[in-house]
Structures are given as C-alpha cells and as structure tokens.
C-alpha cells in the first residue's frame, strides 16, 4: 500500500503543477481503467473537485457500455464533459478496414487535434503509462507538442527533479502525463484500495473472457480469463507474461511509434 501512496503523491503533485500553470487545461478521459484512475487522482488533488473539463474523443466505435458509464459518472461527480468527434472523417465513411493506423490517425489523433484547436487548450492531461509500450516509456511528465500537435521525441526538454516544462511558445501545447510511473498492476491495486467505480467489461461475466485494455469495438479483442473480481485481476496480472496491449491491433509492427509521433495519445 505504501508504494501506491508514493505513486499517488507524485501524481497529485504533477496535477497541481498543471492546474497552477495552465489557464486552459483539460483532461482526456477514455473511460478506461487508467484515465478513470487519473480522474480519481484529480479529485484527490483538488479535494473532491475537478476544476477542468474532461475530454472524450468519440470515434463512434466505442463499446456502448462505455458511453453509459461515462454519462453516469459525469452526473454523479458533477464533471464538465466535452465530447469531440471527427465528423468529417466519419461522414466520409472512415473505419478500421481502411487501415488501422489510418483509422486511428483520422478518428483519434485528428479528432483530438481538432478538439484542442477548437477549444484552444494549452495543457492536456493524459493517462498514458510508461509500461504500456516502448515509446510511452520514453515520455516526459510534461511533454511539449509543436504547432501541428506533433511530438519531437529526438529533442525532449530536460526534466529535473520536480521542475517541469511549464512555459512554451504560443500555438504549441503541453501533454501532461501524471501516470507515467504506474504499472498495470498498480492501477488495479489502486482501484481496489480506493474502491473506484470501473466498467465491468474488465471482468469475466461467465464466458471465460474479459477485456484487458479497452479501445474501439472492432479493434479490441477480449482475452481468455476467468477473473471475476479486482482481486482476481491482480492475481492474474502477477503471473501473466502476456503483454497488456496484446488485444490492441494498432500496436502491430511500428504502429504506435508512427501514431505517437503525429500526436496520438
């Protein structure tokens, strides 16, 4: 439990730094386990309040239960929810069969960029974790994006002790990553410790499968698992050697590096 409180203290510090320094700040919420823990940490940091809007980039291909869960929590926790969608691409019939990187770029990366541009956010808080995949392992807590929203991973700013990059030229923005040091197990341990409501797609409901990572319905497949409770999940994760995102099609080949360089989450 002590290690979870250490992670919590660090994340809360980062969230408070973000709130102090960015006048136009927002948090990305995909309703998955990570961004929901992030949302909970914001309530920790601001003593029950969430003093910035939550953004959901809706690809229209999300699993319906996720949307219900989103609206319920938004009501109960009095959240300011902002939903963005790349309507143009959807109208043109964009879907995963046109190529996964193509579809993710159009509906998620570009959907996000449109939303950021439209609302003029200068700071965006995201729940990415370093242990998810290789390029995220190289992220900074405060990570600048250029005028096109692109990530220049070759020239990342220094990050010294608790001093982060909080000043940036007009037209650019900063991605803030308070969960970088958390692992998948930490997320579930914390959900248990704090009793955080999560979506039950992560649990086996009798058919011997569950989702380990949630994305769009066509590109996310459940894994074989009989974990019916959070405790079961934690136990399972302690023994698994299967990668968390093995059910996520966009990770194949160099998919994530290409996506993230162009500003994917």
């Amino acid at each position, binding site marked *: 439990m002590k290690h979870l409180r250490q992670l919590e203290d660090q994340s809360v510090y980062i969230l408070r730094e973000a709130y102090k320094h960015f*006048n136009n700040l927002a948090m990305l919420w995909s309703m998955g386990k990570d961004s929901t823990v992030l949302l909970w940490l914001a309530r920790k940091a601001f003593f029950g309040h969430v003093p910035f809007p939550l953004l959901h980039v809706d690809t229209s291909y999300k699993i319906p239960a996720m949307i219900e869960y989103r609206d319920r929590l938004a009501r109960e926790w009095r959240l300011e929810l902002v939903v963005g969608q790349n309507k143009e691409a959807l109208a043109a019939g964009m879907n995963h069969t046109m190529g996964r990187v193509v579809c993710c770029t159009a509906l998620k990366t570009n959907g996000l960029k449109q939303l950021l541009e439209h609302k003029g956010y200068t700071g965006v808080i995201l729940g990415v974790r370093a242990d998810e995949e290789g390029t995220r392992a190289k992220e900074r807590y405060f990570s600048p994006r250029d005028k096109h929203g692109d990530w220049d991973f070759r020239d*990342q700013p220094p990050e010294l002790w*608790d001093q982060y990059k909080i000043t*940036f030229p007009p037209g650019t923005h900063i991605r803030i990553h308070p969960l970088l040091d958390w692992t998948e197990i930490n997320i579930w341990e914390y959900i248990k410790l704090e009793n955080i409501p999560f979506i039950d797609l992560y649990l086996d409901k009798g058919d011997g499968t569950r989702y380990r990572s949630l994305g769009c319905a066509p590109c996310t497949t459940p894994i074989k698992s009989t974990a019916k409770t959070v405790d079961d999940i934690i136990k399972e994760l302690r023994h698994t050697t299967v*990668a968390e995102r093995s059910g996520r099609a966009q990770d194949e080949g160099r998919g994530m590096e290409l996506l993230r360089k162009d500003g994917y989450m």
Partner: protein
Amino acid sequence: MTTTHTKPSENLNIVIVGHVDHGKSTLLGRLYADTGSLPDGKLEKVQAICKQQGKEFEYAFLFDAFLEEQEQGITIDTARTFFMWKGRQYIIIDAPGHKEFLKNMISGAARAEAALLLIDALEGVKEQSKKHGYLLSLLGVRQFAVVVNKMDLVGYRQDVFDGIEKEYREFLGQFKAVPSQFIPVSAKLGDNIANRSEQMPWYTGSTVLETLGGFQKEAARSEQPLRMPVQDVYKFDARRIITGRIAAGRLKVGDHLVFSPSNKRANIRTVEAFNIEPQPTEGQAGQSIGVTLDEQIFVERGEIASHQDHLPAVSTAFRANLFWLGKRPLEKERKYLLRVATKEVDCEVASIHRIIDTMDLAQQQGSNTVNKNQVAELTLRTKAPVAFDLSASFEATGRFVLVDEYDIAGGGIITELVHDDQEFLREEARQRDFAWVKGEVTVEDRAQQYGHRAAVVLITGGRHTGKSFLARKLEGRLVADGRHAYLLDGENLRRGLDADLSEEERGQTTEMARRYGEVARLLTDTGLIVVSTTNPFGLAYREASQAIRTLVNPAPVIAVHMSKTEEELPPNTDVVLTGPTDFDAATARILDELKRRGVLAQAIGAKPVFQYSI
C-alpha cells in the same frame, strides 16, 4: 530463474548510466530476460524484426523503442522500465550514454534514488564515465554501484578489473563519491547479472541483481526539520486549503508554521484529504498534502513553511554548482528565471567563479559564459528575496533550475548563502515579526472591513518630477473611493521621531530609511494603503526603497518611478511615468496596478483567484 510475485512493499527508481556503447541497454535487456520479466512474445517480436532487417539480435533492442535508436544502435532518450523482484517494484531508467543526449541522461538520473554506472572492460574509463559519475554526485544520487562490463572480451581477467576499479575509485574520491560495489560482468553472456558467473571465481561480491536488492529506499527525510514549499492555495468550497509536497520533516494539527520569506505565521487547524477515513491529522516527507490554518493569512506559492526553530535561509544571492544544458551559453549578467522548489523569480548571474572540466576536474577561471554540457561554480542574484537551504542539509529546497526563454536550460545545487546588504534589516524584521503582539483583530478581519488589504505605494524619482503632487492626488482619490489611505510624508518624521538625531545622522540614508520603514510597517499593520515618496532621501532613493521594502515585507510595495527623461529604473519598478505627466491618467494606472496585485478586490482572468478573497 523465475520472478517472485509477492506484493510489492515499495518502489525504487534506478538509473543506468555510463559512456556510449559500454552496454547499458544490453545489461537492462539481459536483466529482464534472465529474471523472466519480459512479456510473452517480446523477445520473439524483436528477434523477428532483427531478422527482417538482416542484423544480429541484441538485448539492447528490447528497450530502444524508436526505429532510429535501433538503426543507429544507440539510446536517444531515457526509457522507464519496470520489474518486480523480491517484493520490490523497480523502475529502471535506461539513460543514453552519447554526449549529445546528456540532457536526457540528466533527466533520467534526476529521477533516480540509486544508480548503476557501466564501464567497458576493454575500453576502460572514458569521458562520459567520468562526466556521469560527477553528475550523479551533483544530482544527489549517492547510492551507486560500478559495473565493469564486457569482461568476456578481456578473458575475464582480474587484473584488468582491478586496474579499472583503482583508476575510477581515485577519480570518484576527488569529490568524495563512494560506490557500494564494483561488479565484473558480461551483460551479453549473462555473467554476474542475475546468475553468478562461473568464469570469474576470483570475484565473490554480489551480482547486479543482488546489488539492486541491497540499495536502500531514500533515507528518512521525515526525521529532518520541516520544509513544505507552498504549491498552491485553493478555495473550491468553504475551506481555504494550502497545498504542498512536504520536502522534509513532518507536521501535524496544532503545529505553529512560519512561512518564509514573508515571515507570516499561523497554526495548522486541519489536514485535508479526499476519500481518506478518518481524516488525517499529520503528514510527513514525500506526501502531497493540504492544510487549513487557524488564521486567514495571505501566503503564496513559493514560500516555504517550516517550524520556528529551524527556518530556511533567506537572501537575494547564493553560490551554486550548476550544469548547463541550454542551446545557447549561459552568460554573465543575462536575466534568467530561477525556480527553487515552487518559487519562481527573475535572477541574473552575478559572477562565474570557475568552469569545472569533468574529465580531470581541472578548473578554468575568468570565463564570462558557460557552454552546453559544462559544469560551473557561480553566484546568482535574485530580484526578490528567496527562501532556500544549502544542498548539503536539504536536498529538495537546496537545488534549483534556470529557465532560459521557454526551456529549463540548467540545474544546480546551492552550496553557500551569499549575504546581501539587506541582511541586517531582514533579520530585524524577522525578529520583530516573531515577537509582534497581536490583538483580537486579524489582518484578514481588517481587509474584510476595509474592502482592501494593506500596501505601500512608493513614488521614486529625481527632484522636481512631481512625486509629492502625485502622492497627494492619489491619496485623495483613494479616500474619495472609500479606501483607507494615508499620505506618509518624510518631513513629518524629521521633526518628530527623528528629532533626536544630529544633522550628520540625518544625512545617513541607512538609519533614516530604517526609521521610515518601521513607521510604514506600523501603518500597514493597521490595514492602511500608505502613499509615500522617497523625497526625504534625495538621490539616495534606490538604497532607501530597498530598505523600506525589506521592512514592510510582506505588505506589497507598488513602486512608481517618475522621471522627465528616459533613465535607468530602480529594481522592481511597477509603474513608469516618463516625461510630462497627466496626473489623472497616472492615478488611474496606479489604481489598476493595485487591482492587479490583489490589494483592491477584483476577479482576475478566467480563473477566479483564490489566493486572497475579500
């Protein structure tokens, strides 16, 4: 070997550093492979990519995620990787060894609690081996082991290993760094990584894995005196919560806190938290915390809360060791933004004492610039007083970064307090404030009643620039608006309070300014907006206004400078009035400044300002 999957009790951040190509990423890959910590298919996936690209598989490819890194065979940026071993969760940071990516290495090392420093047995001690060793010490990473890699390439010979150990220990000894262990390994072949090598029976020390297990979680900073830099002040609901991360020591409900440099004081009423039952009553080093106080004092981000018997230092200057990472060189007398804990203040480099060559620790004097990747000893001077500690006593409040334009361009540790000319007055103010006897009416009560808080408007400038006229006009306008303002004219002090002074003594700015400042301090304690000029000090107004500022602290001083022509402004001027003055417009500008500074109540910007509410 298999990983043990017990519940972790703690996290430990480890960084792997060393010269380029000495095998850091390979060591990391091997550590994971040999402890069964890699996810299924990861090894196979990377092997397949290698085959496809027609090159030999290397363990390093497991974590060098970027295409460019694999193509060039070097690590560009630090990667955080995780593994669990014997009940502890390790976050291992693989830092790049190429000198071009030193800022990335430093970012990685600054996050670490312990380090492994690699040296290639065949190449021996190289430039970055030394630089990294020196920087670890400067960054405050005191626990580390030296791993001598590629022992297979030197026939596992003990004399080679001993030679490197001797040479490197001598280097480290010059700045008193002591590694916990020297370990001979072959990362490629797995000797002494997770498994004991059969090739080197002469080595009986611990393996890399055992060494990691021996690293201790950071020493208990909770036992030190309290340091809590204020991060922010919230008022989302009825509670006015002061937040911060406790850098050292502990606090509890009822503790008497002193905030530096403002010297404000109050007792902790509650410790606030979300979803923690029962509500906590104390906090300790490492925690991000929120407290409410028994008195509504005005404190800001950047101040350091401590207990009264162990206060941090306060000055406008200190000496430091700094490493520079900026794209353009650090220059003497150029302005930078200094960040110490949560305080941000403008500063300039007063002097560069010497540049230190990390290869041989030779010192070079007389330089006016510090280039990228150089280390230097220098003195910084800040625009306003800052609270800090010496790095030898307190880590978190004894280090700083410098920001050049938009970027953090350097960092360092504070080695010495430099006394400035305000030191005696500041100490007088501190002692007087601590002993100050208060009535039942608080500063906040007065602010509520008056609709504004106390401040000093100080009008500076040469003779016949209209200072007195403007001061009268401003006082009149403030009172007409229902504010509580008072014109403090130096002439009135001269004939009364200063009547005991000889003519000669009256000519001395220091004592005159001290008396003047103490009177202004009394008036601001009554909640007034004091309007004044530096007339009694003639042309010594720069010196006098510094002293007044120190003595009325923490009441804000709004400095207005009047001149007939363009001239160099006194430090910290807020409003500049040059040439023929339109006194109505000038008054309006000063009122705007009073609003901007939160003296007169108003909402500022899109976000409501919770710092001070009246």
